[in-house]
């Protein structure tokens, strides 16, 4: 169990490391010279005040942005540029700050879309819905139903997601990411805009994903209580610079972090 103040859970090797990464948009430096790593099986939080470069960091990791400087090492492979498609192939899944679902499709189809890369049968078999394609479709459907059960969204599986309340949309989005069976799951503010009860539910799911599937998770979150409860290690960014890195307790008592959050008297 991870409780605030509890001992750090032993985690595995480095899964992903970010080395001296810098990214700027024109004259604006979004991220400058940031390095940190994510270890196998841990829940790693990235926190910081607004505009600290957290989402940019996530976008760099899954290939939406290409940093001008620095390297990303994922599963022992170093790449300067990685496309989102490659990231997905390599086992990185993500959710978005402002839910990005396929609004016109049902919850079930949305989650099935997460299986895209796992489907291999020939397109013509799929067209005929016959032979190996049928077997495959059934197998994928079974996995998807497991995820639906896991997230307790059975009753909405046939609803177009555009019609669902926000909290459930977030859950469907998590489901789609899980359907990819990722090694690394990136969650961009999974609890933003939720009430207390929804936050607790979502926290439970995050912990369960980590426990049951052994998925490594990197999450951005604003709610400090949630971050301290969930994460094994925390990296703190402010104005694109890393100001602290460590266990929740270490970070909480770090002077630079307190200053960044509360402001300093000059």
């Amino acid at each position: 169990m991870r409780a605030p103040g509890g001992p750090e859970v032993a985690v595995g090797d480095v899964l992903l490391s970010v080395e001296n990464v810098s990214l700027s948009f024109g004259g604006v430096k979004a991220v400058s010279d940031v390095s940190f790593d994510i270890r196998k099986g841990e829940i790693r939080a990235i926190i910081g005040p607004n505009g600290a470069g957290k989402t940019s960091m996530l976008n760099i990791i899954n290939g939406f942005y290409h940093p001008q400087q620095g390297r990303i090492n994922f599963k022992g492979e170093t790449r300067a540029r990685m496309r989102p498609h490659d990231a997905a192939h390599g086992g990185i899944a993500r959710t978005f700050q402002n839910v990005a679902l396929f609004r016109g499709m049902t919850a079930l189809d949305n989650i099935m879309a997460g299986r895209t890369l796992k489907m291999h049968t020939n397109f013509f078999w799929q067209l005929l819905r016959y032979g190996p394609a049928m077997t495959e479709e059934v197998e994928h459907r079974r996995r998807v139903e497991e995820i639906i059960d896991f997230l307790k969204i059975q009753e909405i599986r046939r609803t177009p997601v555009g019609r669902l309340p926000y909290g459930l949309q977030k859950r469907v989005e998590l489901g789609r990411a899980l359907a990819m069976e990722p090694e690394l799951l990136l969650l961009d503010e999974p609890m933003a805009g939720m009430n207390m009860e929804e936050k607790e539910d979502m926290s439970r799911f995050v912990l369960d994903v980590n426990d049951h599937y052994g998925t490594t998770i990197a999450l951005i979150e604003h709610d400090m209580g949630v971050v301290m409860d969930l994460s094994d290690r925390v990296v703190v960014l402010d104005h694109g610079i890393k100001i602290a890195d460590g266990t929740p307790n270490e970070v909480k008592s770090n002077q630079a972090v307190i200053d960044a959050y509360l402001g300093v008297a000059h």
Partner: protein
Amino acid sequence: MDLFYNIIIDPFAQMAQAPDLLAQTLWEGLVGGMLYALIALGFVLIFKASGVFNFAQGIMVVFAALTLVGLHTAGVPAFLALGLTIVVMFVLAWTIERVVLRPLVNQPDIILFMATFGITYFLIGFGEFVFGGDPKIMITEALYLPKGSITYKAFGGVVSLQRLDIVAVIVASIMVAGLGVFFSKTRIGRALRAVADSHSAALSVGISLDQIWVIVWFAAGLVALVTGIFWGARSDVSFALDVIALKALPVLILGGFTSIPGAIVGGLIIGIGEKLGEFYWGPLIGGGTDAWFAYVIALVFLLFRPQGLFGEKIIERV
């Protein structure tokens, strides 16, 4: 009272009196409708996958037909020319993805829409440059498309069906059915719909936008080629054909921009409605209805179903 009689009663009386004429009119409407449906299908394909009304679909029909005829006149055997045209349509799709769409990822739909205007004018210029501007004749014989007509004695008179029309209807039906299954049942079909809804989300689950766009524009190109062959066989192959594409607009309004069955049913309603209107009601106002009657039909439907007959319900949470 006379006017009332002329509009409401007389046309139907005529239909009842001469069922053979009615059957003939309906058949012609059906054929026209099927071809409208084919054009509309090209639009639906691209709209479903990218949420963009592809203004260039009409000119793609012309371009495909011109390429086919042009290659044949240059001495290429007909079926080889057909194969080469398919290759050309693929290259076109690939080029459009590379040059036009890729730099515009994640841009608002209106930008992509404007880009299709650019594609249209480029294709007109390029087509004229390569094949010249004068009308050409579709190579129906070389493609072994049947000609002449079959005449039936039915409904107390004679109904004659053009063989070419019969083939057109069959080919169009097969194409439509195939595309329907493709969209709803395959992995690529699901990916296509996903791309239409959200680019970034599609990327995050590992759908390759580049690949999807090439596939969908290629599919639209194939539909354009088939449309071009059959429309070209009915009139001739010239740049004037791209106006026909505007006829697809009422079909789309009627059927909904995202629905394949909608494109079919919409096409048939417009095709048949247009022919009936022209034949039975047209004389009342001195003819010339075919230019606008389709739009009137679409308008009437729009009053009752703004999302079209089969369109996706407009979902908006506020």
